[in-house]
């Protein structure tokens, strides 16, 4: 079996007295779509923050493409090919959509400049459906486009692994269908995708395997059908009564 592209072992994150992540371990194979689900406050976003280095993990190991990256600063992890989007979108509001995306192209793993960067940015804008918006200021975009802008900027860094934090939150059903096909297309272009989603059925429809977190602990991992029938998962989502029924 080939070495997984991302291998997390005994990852722990403590905030004072709160253990936000305790002993999280999993592996993601190249080309997989891997889901991370769990109720509010389960530690999903903290997990992503630790992976990309925007928060330093308390302990544990994160091996990415065979090298240890735990403790590296965020920008260094991005340059190695692991990038995330933010659940609460964080566009550079006073910049155009194109300028937003070109930051990723200039400073990500690709480090492209000049015409090379512009070509790459144009291609990504087309692919994410933002082509017509290239010249608009980010502050003028509706939420659906801002979510796409988050993905476009992350793609512009030319990652090997893309971590999507609730990109479907706040989207309407037809936008969710479009987002799911975009995620599949991203995977088919050779990337590995990790995705946090609140929307359990949306994530089950698109992921190969998934991980369930509850209060910072892993309670299940596997293919979506098995995971969603796991008694602890049912309890975590629906409460004790539903688990007993």
């Amino acid at each position, binding site marked *: 079996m080939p070495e997984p592209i991302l291998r997390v072992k005994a990852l722990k994150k403590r905030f004072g007295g709160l253990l936000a992540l305790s002993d999280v371990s999993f592996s993601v194979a190249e080309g997989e779509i891997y889901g991370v689900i769990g109720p509010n406050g389960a530690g999903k976003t903290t997990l992503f923050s630790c992976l990309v280095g*925007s928060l330093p993990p308390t302990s544990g190991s994160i091996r990415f493409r065979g090298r240890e990256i735990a403790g590296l600063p*965020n920008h260094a992890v*991005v340059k190695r090919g692991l990038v995330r989007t933010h659940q609460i979108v964080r566009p*550079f509001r006073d*910049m155009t959509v194109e300028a937003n995306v070109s*930051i*990723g192209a200039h400073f*990500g793993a690709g480090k492209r*400049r000049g015409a090379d960067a512009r070509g790459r940015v144009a291609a990504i804008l087309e692919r994410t459906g933002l082509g017509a918006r290239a010249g608009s200021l980010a502050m003028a975009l509706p939420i659906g486009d801002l979510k796409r802008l988050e993905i476009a900027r992350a793609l512009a*860094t030319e990652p090997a692994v893309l971590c999507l934090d609730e990109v479907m939150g706040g989207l309407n059903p037809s936008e969710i269908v479009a987002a799911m096909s975009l995620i599949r297309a991203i995977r088919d272009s050779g990337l590995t995708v990790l995705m946090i989603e609140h929307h359990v059925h949306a994530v089950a429809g698109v992921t190969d395997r998934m991980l369930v977190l509850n209060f910072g602990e892993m309670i299940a991992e596997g293919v979506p059908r098995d995971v969603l029938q796991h008694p602890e998962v049912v309890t975590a989502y629906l409460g004790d009564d539903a688990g007993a029924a």
Partner: protein
Amino acid sequence: MRRLSLAAGVSLAVFTLAAPLFLERGTLNDVWSLAFAVILASAWNILGGFAGQVSLGYSAFLGIGAYTTVLLSLKGMDPFLSLPIGAVLAAIFSVAIGLPAFRLRGPYFTIATIGVGEAVRVCASSVSFTGGSSGLRMPAGSFDFTRNYEAMAVLAILTVVVAALVKRSAFGQALAAIKQDIDAAEALGVNSTRFKLGAHALSAAIVALAGSLYAINFQYIAPGSVFDFRLSLSIVLMPIVGGVGTIAGPVLGALVFSTLQIKLLSIPALRDSYLFIYGTLLIVVMLFEPKGILGLLRRVFNRRLRRFYADA
């Protein structure tokens, strides 16, 4: 508007370079002060305006340039040859301050820079090789106004050109991203510390060059003059009043500031009041037009343009 400000900038540059041909010495002195103010404002704007890191410690760099030049001139060096040395020292010092200070954000960074500026002034007043609080005098025969004027004019033009190039480059784009959302910038691979240090070093070096020329022109420096906190304050006020983060804004602010200062200094009763008047101007700008004089001009110009098209 873009073409208009480019035309205005080029005319200003030509005027500054050609001024010795037709202006008398007294007026030329005022143009020298204007060029000095343009350098300080535009250089500060690279870090403070483009990257949003508001430093109130820039007198430190001015003083490092000034002291380097005086000390090396006293050792027998040509004052003008000491300029790059002062610039390099200021850049190194800016990195030394920046490494800890850039860990702080927003107002905390600003407060730290006030501390650094004051600490440098106190140090310069208490050690002996700087002449302590009584200061140092340039060696006799080092005064050359014509040469100094030319150097100051060229440096002012170069500073504005460098700032414009930085703003348009990938480096400038990284600074803009840092200004708007530093965490989002990091999340896209921008090494924010490195870019902030780079912008700090570049602007510190330019300010030190101006400080060296200042020392040569005034022939005498003391901690109370070149490391003065009011100087740091003026450096910040000019770009803010003119239009922070733009190219023309700091130049406009410097124009207003140096004109105001020259006019007020000539009235004995108002000699010390220029900071008060400037502070009032700052409050007015912050309240009514945070984009400064340039923002105001843009609004007026756009309205007239719209009216022109509506009439046509």
